[in-house]
């Protein structure tokens, strides 16, 4: 049984913070298929299109028929633990500081044998489930967990290292005013977050969320305006060293494309909040979070952006807003690269139209604040990089993967004339 994870004790001010360390990052190109699947929490393996054999480790040619037509497909994640070991010494500093480290050899029901991280509750010959998760190097790795849930299962140190679980962590949500903030804050507190900081812009402008949220225990409302560099820097100075997860939900949106609007006023605000706001936050909070990824139970874990799924392909009814989201999405990819050596993750939550004022004119389905909050917390727990929230987001993702040009053509379709 896994012992329950205790809240971190108060930090010894005389102790140096553990530097960010990483497990090995180098992978072949073929092996990155595992990483791509892990980014979405899927367990996939290489399959030969010609002879259908499933194989692992990833190869460039089929070991059964030498075909080079290999694709990644989701697979049953069930297997049997053949052998286990507890590694007590390693030449890699990341593991050295986390010893002992359990690993095992698992025969998958679909055939291949994998070496994997091993949950503390797994024993030799047990049936196990394989999780494909991103590790601190940002690479997909496999972890065997018990097939049936066990007590405090998520508190296992190796499982937790492959997640960004909100439990015992301090989380900044950047925009108190966003309609999704109460649901997000509530879900994070339910998930065991130690503190939820809420950034409030323009406190002179009253807002209903304030009274709802101010009363909650473990919630702190703090001034933050993502369009104001000084405000962002000031808050980073105050709480940057204890922000373990940052959820950027600041959003400015208005309907319309370029011609609908006739000027750049709203577009500037959209870029200022949605794109430059992210940049200001990253510049102010990024370095501090990057330095704290090895800081124990409440180490800095993840940077979260909430983005329109149309960041992938523009929706002209919201053309300018979507463009600012595309910019933010692109910047999030830059941040992934810039954060990489620290192990700080970037999770993008791609959402379809949300159930709020600015999407009133669109028909359902829409993403409710609760659904968005659930997906975000689940994404953190699974350590995902890409979360697709709602039917629309999932559909757009599928269509985008199938053919980005076809999707673009369909989204930009004109109304049929006479």
């Amino acid at each position: 049984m896994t012992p329950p994870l205790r809240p971190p004790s108060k930090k010894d001010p005389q102790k140096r913070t553990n530097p960010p360390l990483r497990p090995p990052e180098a992978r072949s190109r073929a092996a990155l298929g595992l990483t791509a699947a892990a980014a979405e929490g899927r367990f996939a393996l290489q399959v030969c299109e010609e002879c259908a054999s499933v194989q692992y480790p990833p190869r460039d040619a089929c070991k059964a028929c030498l075909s080079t037509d290999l694709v990644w497909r989701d697979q049953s994640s069930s297997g049997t633990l053949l052998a286990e070991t507890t590694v007590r010494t390693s030449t890699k500093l990341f593991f050295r500081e986390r010893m002992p480290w359990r690993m095992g050899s698992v025969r998958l029901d679909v055939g291949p044998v994998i070496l994997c991280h091993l949950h503390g509750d797994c024993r030799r010959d047990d049936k196990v489930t394989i999780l494909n998760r991103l590790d601190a190097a940002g690479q997909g790795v496999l972890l065997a967990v018990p097939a049936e849930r066990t007590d405090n299962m998520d508190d296992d140190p190796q499982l937790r290292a492959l997640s960004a679980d909100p439990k015992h962590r301090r989380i900044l949500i950047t925009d108190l005013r966003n309609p999704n903030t109460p649901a997000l804050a509530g879900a994070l507190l339910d998930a065991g977050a130690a503190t939820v900081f809420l950034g409030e812009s323009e406190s002179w402008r009253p807002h209903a969320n304030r009274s709802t949220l101010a009363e909650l225990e473990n919630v702190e409302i703090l001034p933050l305006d993502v369009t104001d560099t000084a405000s962002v820097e000031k808050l980073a100075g105050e709480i940057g060293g204890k922000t373990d997860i940052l959820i950027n939900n600041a959003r400015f949106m208005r309907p319309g494309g370029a011609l609908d609007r006739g000027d750049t006023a709203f577009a500037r605000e959209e870029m200022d909040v949605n794109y430059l706001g992210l940049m200001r936050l990253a510049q102010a909070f990024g370095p501090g979070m990057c330095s704290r990824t090895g800081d124990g139970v409440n180490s800095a874990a993840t940077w979260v952006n909430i983005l329109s799924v149309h960041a992938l392909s523009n929706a002209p009814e919201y053309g300018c807003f979507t463009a600012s989201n595309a910019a933010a999405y692109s910047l999030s990819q830059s941040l992934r690269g810039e954060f990489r050596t620290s192990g700080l993750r970037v999770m993008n939550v791609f959402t379809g139209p949300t159930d709020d004022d600015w999407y009133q004119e669109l028909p359902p389905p829409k993403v409710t604040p609760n659904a968005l909050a659930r997906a975000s917390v689940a994404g953190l727990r699974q350590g995902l990089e890409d979360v697709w929230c709602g039917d629309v987001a999932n559909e757009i993702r599928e269509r985008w993967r199938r053919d980005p040009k076809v999707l673009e053509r369909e989204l930009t379709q004109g109304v049929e004339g006479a």
Partner: protein
Amino acid sequence: MTALETLVSGLAGGSVRIIDLTHTLDPDFPVIVLPPEFNQCARFRMEEISAYDHRGPAWKWHNISMSEHTGTHFDAPSHWISGRDVPRGSVDEIPIEAFVGPVVVIDCSSGAAENEDFELTPGIIAGWEAEHGEIPEDAWVLMRTDWSKRSGADYLNMREDGPHSPGPTPDGIRFLIEERKFAALEPKRSVPMPVRALIMCRPIRRIFTCTAPGNTVCSVLQTWISFLQPVPY
């Protein structure tokens, strides 16, 4: 002594004082908030260009951006639709002399303290004139409300039906414009639409919004005021 020499020696001797009616702007300074489907007044922003660092080793400076409608400001006749056809109705076209004139202060601070919707009515103006004499032609009229002592949410004083603050009634403005032919004053933030339209449609009227963190010429402290001043053409 020429008039200018008199002014300079008065300033030097302390018999004439310069009063700063401005606010110091910061990024959290309240600005007018319109319904969200309208374009919005930009917030005051100040971004460091460099501060004796790698971006510029020996100097510190900033880029600032703001709306013309932020803090202590001047509304040109062309600000409002009723004044859009006023000749030379934009700030850069107004002769500089029009910005200098005599001032009267109507102290409404005690009334505004009791009632956040306190109104400057023709009756109050008449009362002031009974005590101080008729408002002279070409004078600026300042309405003292002490609203500048407030800050943040108190300052904006937003309710579900919009912000609340003291101001003149349409009748009061009409009286100043039509009966005195010179000046009106108001806590501009809360000027109701009909009043605004009335003022702006006159080619000779403009509105300032400013604030006085220190004393005014009339020993008015911390006053949030607006000016209406006649323009000589």
